[in-house]
């Protein structure tokens, strides 16, 4: 598989409570994608589509991928929905990447979710379905609860201070101020995070990502097409993915996500890079503890050492390894099925130097980390711009 793969266009809707249907959202993201391209694109050249979606607020639509591509004006291209909980579009991207590797020239990957058209009780019912329903859910655990169990154990094993978790939220809110697509564009203070109402101790309200509507889409191309249609393609150097036990009690460790470790190892191997070559990353911070775990599991910091690095500011926009310049799931928002390719939209902008005031300076290589549920699925991708 020596064919090179590039991202040649990427777009998204803002994230938030949008009051729009999945059709409107996805077409909006697609239009944004078309606008982002360097040269005029003939959309009829797109050969295939992979669309991440968990379930449109539990509405359980069948065949949404066909609906979405016909709405975009491509009624006959083969399309399918990819469902891997919150990692749906990370996996949609991986499938699109492999399609190019296998001979395709132009493939669409994207994701969409509408979460805010549900009454809150239906939301609370629906949001737990991506974990283990037979034991976790029967014990009354929520996702916040599952991540809280990880956080508590991490604190127990490594002495992780509560403030390190809070610092992730503070930093992500700060980054999102400069992201016009973010759901929350307001800074918050450490005090505010620490004194917020508890959701599942040690996690409080500001340790949790919001529920969001939104869509995102990226266009992948072969080397030939990339050179033809893009002046500044963003190359995909590696793709890695892994599954893990669905239920948290089945895992040997709950202080790291094994799926993240395995996925990043495959991605780095394929890219022929070390983690130290990565300049910044968009990681899956559905809860603050998830960002901390990602920093350790991806290999940016040794196990048990991330909290120190976070508190010293190393993950800030101007730190040694900027994490979530977009604001992350915490502040940019988390429309489940749209999140994975949404991270790649941010990387596309950053690597092309068009991220405005949240621009990471001198970045050539970046990583996207997308997790499903509490870590049962994970997709990692590595990107680089031409020097």
């Amino acid at each position, binding site marked *: 598989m020596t064919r090179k793969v590039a991202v040649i266009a990427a777009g998204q809707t803002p994230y938030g409570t949008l009051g729009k249907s999945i059709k409107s959202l996805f077409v909006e993201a697609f239009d944004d994608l078309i606008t982002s391209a360097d040269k005029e694109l003939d959309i009829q050249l797109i050969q295939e589509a992979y669309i991440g979606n968990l379930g449109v607020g539990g509405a359980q639509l069948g065949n949404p991928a066909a609906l979405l591509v016909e709405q975009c004006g491509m009624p006959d291209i083969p399309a399918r929905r990819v469902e891997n909980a919150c990692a749906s579009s990370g996996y949609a991207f991986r499938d699109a990447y492999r399609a190019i590797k296998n001979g395709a020239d132009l493939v669409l990957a994207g994701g969409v979710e509408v979460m805010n058209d549900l009454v809150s009780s239906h939301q609370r019912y629906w949001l737990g379905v991506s974990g283990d329903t037979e034991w*976790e859910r*029967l014990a009354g655990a*929520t996702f916040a609860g599952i991540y809280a169990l990880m956080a508590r154990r991490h604190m127990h094993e490594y002495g992780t201070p509560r403030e390190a978790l809070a610092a992730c939220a503070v930093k992500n809110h700060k980054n999102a101020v400069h992201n016009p697509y973010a759901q929350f564009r307001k800074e918050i203070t450490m005090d505010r995070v620490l004194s917020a109402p508890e959701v599942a101790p040690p996690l409080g309200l500001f340790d949790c990502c919001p529920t969001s509507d939104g869509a995102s889409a990226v266009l992948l191309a072969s080397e030939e097409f990339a050179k033809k249609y893009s002046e500044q393609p963003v190359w995909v150097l590696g793709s890695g993915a892994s599954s893990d036990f669905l239920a948290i009690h089945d895992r040997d460790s709950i202080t790291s996500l094994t799926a993240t470790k395995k996925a990043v190892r495959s991605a780095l191997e394929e890219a022929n890079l070390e983690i130290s070559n990565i300049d910044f990353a968009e990681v899956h911070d559905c809860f603050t503890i998830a960002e901390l775990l990602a920093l350790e599991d991806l290999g940016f910091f040794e196990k048990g050492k991330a909290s120190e690095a976070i508190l010293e500011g190393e993950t800030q926009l101007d730190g040694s390894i900027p994490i979530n310049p977009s604001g992350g799931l915490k502040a940019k928002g988390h429309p489940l099925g749209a999140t994975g390719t949404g991270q790649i939209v941010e990387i596309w902008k950053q690597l092309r130097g068009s991220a405005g005031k949240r621009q990471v300076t001198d970045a050539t290589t970046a990583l996207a980390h997308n997790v499903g549920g509490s870590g049962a699925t994970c997709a990692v991708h590595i990107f680089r711009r031409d020097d």
Partner: protein
Amino acid sequence: MSITDVVIYSPRFFVDAKELKQLWNLPILGGYRRILKTGLDENTTTMAVNALLELVDRIGKLPEHLFLYTGHGMFNLSAFLEATGFSEEKIDLLPEPDHYALVALHKAANTKQAAFLLVESLEHEPPSVGGILGSMAIVGYNGSDGGVECNAFRMALGARGQVLRYPGNKFDIRGEPDVLNAIKAAVGRGSVKVIFSNAADLRMLKKAIPNADVETPAHLGYIGSVTPVVSYFKNPEKLNQAILVVADEHQTAILKPSLSGSVNVLETANPRHMLFSQYLAARENPEGNVSIPQGAYISSITYFDQKDARYRLRSVKCLDCQSIQFPPRLRCKRCGGKTEQSAPLPRKASLYSYTKIMKGAAPTEFDIQQMVEGDYCVGIVEFQEGVRVITQNILFRGHIF
């Protein structure tokens, strides 16, 4: 004595108006002034299994026959059979109407080596019923091997008809002279307690027969036809002077029992199965251990697929690498080898991690629990290295979390 052993399985949440008032200092408005609630997800099937397994543990064998009343609910017989190991031909299924609860009791009392099992859950009734929610499973056993005293459960009404039918879709006791006459006759014979299941008609009954000593079992709440039976077993001193009345809009059954001995009323010891006030007390002075939570929104089929794990903490062992695993799985999580059933895990474990699901943040099927308890704890416990499960109700350092 005909019925030799009884287990009453009352679900975990069991709150009456007085307790609610104490808990929240709120005025309790009209209607049915009590709430009786299944634990989260418990339903007639799981309660029936729990009750019968408890009885089987006690008597050491499956009864020869079972008279099973399932109420109006959605009872999953195949799941029940699978979970208990009972065969279908040994069951007389007596679903609605309501009076069949008493029929089941009556039949079991007249059949040796038989059990009756009554389950009722009103969880799915609309709030218009009066905001009440109720559930109960009660199982009893007639283990005597001869000389069954039929008199023990003799129906009070003549023609052995026991059941009165009457037209209309609304039960009004004033319009039912036969029912009234039967009760009047019984009251006339002496000091008789009438235990009445239909609280809505209680006032009218009191008016019609002023000298009757009537009660609805307020401490139990209204759980349809099972209520008077439960009350009956909970008040052994009243056994010689009670009439049980079960009525709904279709028919009425009246049972006049005349037990000569006392009935051994045994509730399951699990802290999940008690009055809420007792539950709170148990928190202060607990005795208990790891208790695996019951189901939520998964199908009965899925739920009972792991029945041995849920009810007995049964683990599996890998035939290849010998590692013990829980919850059970068909193939080993370490090496992929096939597994076989292994010993139950000990009910003692160490606490691996914990959190609290704060009020308002729980999955919707736990709303009632949060209404009753507020925040609740969820933890992971470790039985031995690597063998863990997530659960509620952990007894830790003297407290149940």
